[in-house]
């Protein structure tokens, strides 16, 4: 589903590569943690998958897309098959819960009938049925992240990228969010989550890819956050 082949990325403003000769293969339906300290290249990794950046060397594949070489006009198609969740939720503060989720479909031109049908469904899936008319500021952090997940998942993406989705949440709420991501993973969606959260990685026992200074230093099928920690 996701494949990087000898990928390096050097930013113009830096002499040290953000990623160096990274090769990883992630299958459909996998749940992968991407870990490593700040500056280890996690964000660059995710940005390459979204074609927010182009690698300096190597190939990037997501599903059938040859991400680094595809024409720019096809990038929207790629992004429609990837859902994204962030630490800071990135909700539109002037829209209700349902409108936030619907927005993701409106802007890719989905018909109104479809939107009216699928938005309540996905809100129920993330446990927000009954809160569709609330504004984001009326919700707790955990609930806001659920809205963000609903928005990322409403178009049924093949891949869900989560960049520190629990970074702003307390441990209990984080647990709930992880259960939700697991549920989404069980529908067959590949979930790739960048995180610093030891507790979550250790308790889930999923595949762990660890980056350090831009290189993959560990790839465990059922790993923990830090060896011997």
């Amino acid at each position, binding site marked *: 589903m996701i494949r990087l082949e000898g990928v390096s990325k050097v930013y113009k403003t830096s002499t040290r590569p953000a990623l160096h000769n990274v090769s990883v293969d992630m299958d459909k339906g996998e749940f992968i943690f991407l870990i490593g300290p700040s500056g280890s290249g996690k964000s660059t990794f995710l940005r390459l998958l979204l074609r927010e950046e182009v690698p300096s060397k190597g190939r990037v594949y997501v599903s059938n897309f040859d991400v680094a070489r595809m024409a720019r006009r096809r990038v929207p198609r790629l992004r429609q098959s990837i859902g994204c969740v962030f630490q800071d939720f990135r909700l*539109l503060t002037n829209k209700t819960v349902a409108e936030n989720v619907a927005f993701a479909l409106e*802007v890719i031109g989905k018909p109104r009938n479809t939107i009216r049908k699928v938005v309540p469904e996905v809100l129920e899936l993330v446990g927000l049925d009954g809160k569709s008319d609330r504004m984001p500021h009326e919700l707790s952090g955990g609930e806001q992240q659920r809205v963000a997940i609903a928005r990322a998942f409403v178009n049924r993406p093949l891949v869900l990228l989560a960049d520190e989705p629990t970074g702003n949440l307390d441990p209990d709420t984080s647990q709930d969010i992880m259960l939700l991501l697991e549920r989404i993973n069980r529908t067959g969606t590949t979930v790739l989550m960048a995180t610093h959260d030891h507790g979550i990685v250790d308790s889930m026992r999923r595949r762990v890819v660890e980056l350090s200074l831009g290189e993959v230093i560990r790839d465990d099928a059922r790993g923990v956050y830090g060896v011997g920690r």
Partner: protein
Amino acid sequence: MRASFVFSEVLTGLRRNFTMTIAMILTTAISLTTLGAGLLIVRAVGEVQENFASQTEVQIFLTNDSSAIDTSCSQSPCADLKSQLQNTYGVREVNYENRHQVFERFKKIFAAQPQLVELTREQALPATLHVKTNPGTPTEVLAQQFKNRPGVKSIGDQGQFVRDLFSKLNTIRDVAFGFAVVLAVAALLLISNTVQLSAFNRRTEVGIMRLVGATRWYTQLPFLLEAVVSGLVGAVIGIGGLLALVGAVFGGGGSSIGGIVTSMGIGDVLLVSPILLGVSIVISALTGYVTLRLYVRH
């Protein structure tokens, strides 16, 4: 593409940048009014040229002696002058008007001022040779040529008067176009600024749109339309301004400037308006597009 979605985005954008939008609309409007005034002058000059090119004539006023003696232009110097004129390149027609005929015409012209007619004696008026030329003939050369011939007292060149009028109108036109260009630059910069501001205000929305895979058109069309809608409103106000201007100068139709510039009315403004609308739409869309290309990452 969902029109209702794009439309609501455009409205939101315009509302959020209310003051900038107003500035943008007003500058566009004034710029277009000035441009329109320039275009109307071009039309007026063209019309006047057409009307007067065939009607202007050179009048050769004869000396007192000649006017007194010769009533049918059968003697020298009048007859000589007439035949010389008839043999001059570009001359179409030469007509003689004796002193009495001139006085009759004078009485007709000044019928409204009987005192003036009373005070004027027939002997004070010169017999005149009316010279009509083919269009495009340089009448000033003709006037120069005959100025010092025997029997000629003075020469009146209507072409010279029309040329002076045209040159003044052309200066006004050039100044109007100059102002229009300067204002258009101001409008352009305002449009560019407003589009940038609008995009900055909605960076979260645009960021999300890009992430979920909205096409470039979907993310950028609202901004582009904002620019075009403002341009359109500006153009409509500008056309209104032009109508007001024409109304103020010509009093709503019927009158004219000095009997030379024929009346301009709503019809003329309506003929110019499509140009103004077109210019406004093209410039605002182009500015919006270039701004988005240069400053807003997709």
